[in-house]
């Protein structure tokens, strides 16, 4: 191997080590499981409203249901992140978390503004799905591969829905899909995708390296 080849290889090794060391999983598998189950619960609520209450979710109720699900998921995530940082002996606002928050901030701002402006459930769903994908991809430089794949999946799904929702979800003679159908879309994406993500993370053992418990070792210099 020539000197430049050797140097390039060394630099690649250094780069890959640096990338691996900066990985920060902003959404743990347990959080994804909770998010998935809560989203399915959201759909169940919409189903109950339509078939048992005989009064489908209104636009306001739809918004409230999904904001509550978001709040509960966010709280769960904070708890798991706090537990993880405590196990590793790191501060809660670690460098990884600061990076994640900085990357998320612009997308989050647009989503908050969009949620205030948009009222129809289908528009909200597409806004949330697309921008959630963008938010995950905003962290791609330090996110594990599974989270990037999740982001791409959300982004592609959201974009596809943006282009095709009138053909896919609007029954003939109707202006827009019902709250139940939109809740189904939310359950399929935020529910189904998160459950698949949690299963993939556990199946691949991706979460093991991040939760190495501290043990007493001969650690003196």
């Amino acid at each position, binding site marked *: 191997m*020539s*000197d*430049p080849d*050797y*140097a*390039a290889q*060394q*630099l690649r*090794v*250094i780069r890959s*080590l*640096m990338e*691996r*060391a*900066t990985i920060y999983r902003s959404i743990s598998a347990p959080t994804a499981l909770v998010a998935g189950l809560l989203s399915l619960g959201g759909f169940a609520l919409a189903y109950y409203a339509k078939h048992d209450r005989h009064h489908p979710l209104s636009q306001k109720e739809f918004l409230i249901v999904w904001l509550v699900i978001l709040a509960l998921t966010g709280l769960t995530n904070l708890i798991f992140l706090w537990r993880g940082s405590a196990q*590793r*002996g*790191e501060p809660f606002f670690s*460098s990884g978390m600061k990076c994640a928050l900085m990357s998320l901030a612009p997308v989050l701002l647009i989503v908050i503004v969009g949620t205030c402006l948009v009222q129809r459930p289908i528009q909200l769903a597409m806004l949330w799905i697309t921008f959630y994908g963008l938010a995950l991809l905003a962290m791609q430089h330090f996110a594990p591969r599974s989270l990037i794949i999740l982001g791409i999946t959300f982004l592609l799904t959201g974009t596809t829905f943006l282009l095709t929702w009138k053909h896919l979800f609007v029954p003939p003679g109707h202006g827009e899909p019902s709250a139940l159908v939109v809740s189904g879309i939310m359950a399929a994406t935020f529910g189904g995708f998160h459950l698949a993500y949690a299963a993939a993370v556990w199946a691949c053992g991706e979460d093991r*390296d991040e939760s*190495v418990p*501290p*043990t*007493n*070792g*001969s*650690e*003196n*210099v």
Partner: protein
Amino acid sequence: MFDFDRLDKLIHEKGRLAIMTVLAVKPDWPFQDLKAELKMSDGNLVTHLRALHQAGYVAYRKEILTRPQTRYELTKRGRKAFQDYLKVLEEMVRSAKS
């Protein structure tokens, strides 16, 4: 031909280079996290850390949270040495391209 003597021999060793790299990325590493990240044995890691510490590249502090823990970080001198090492490697690659 490139002058290999310009490379810091202490950092150039594979294990120590890995330690310097991860310490350069994140400021403060508990021993057990370093061990898990680099997949090194206790003995191997301790030996390399001792060598880097003696060279003034790595500092450590002991603390007791729920259990005793030693945390490691790069010193200014260590960071400078690592940056110089990278510069030399980059020069090698650039000289081949030009």
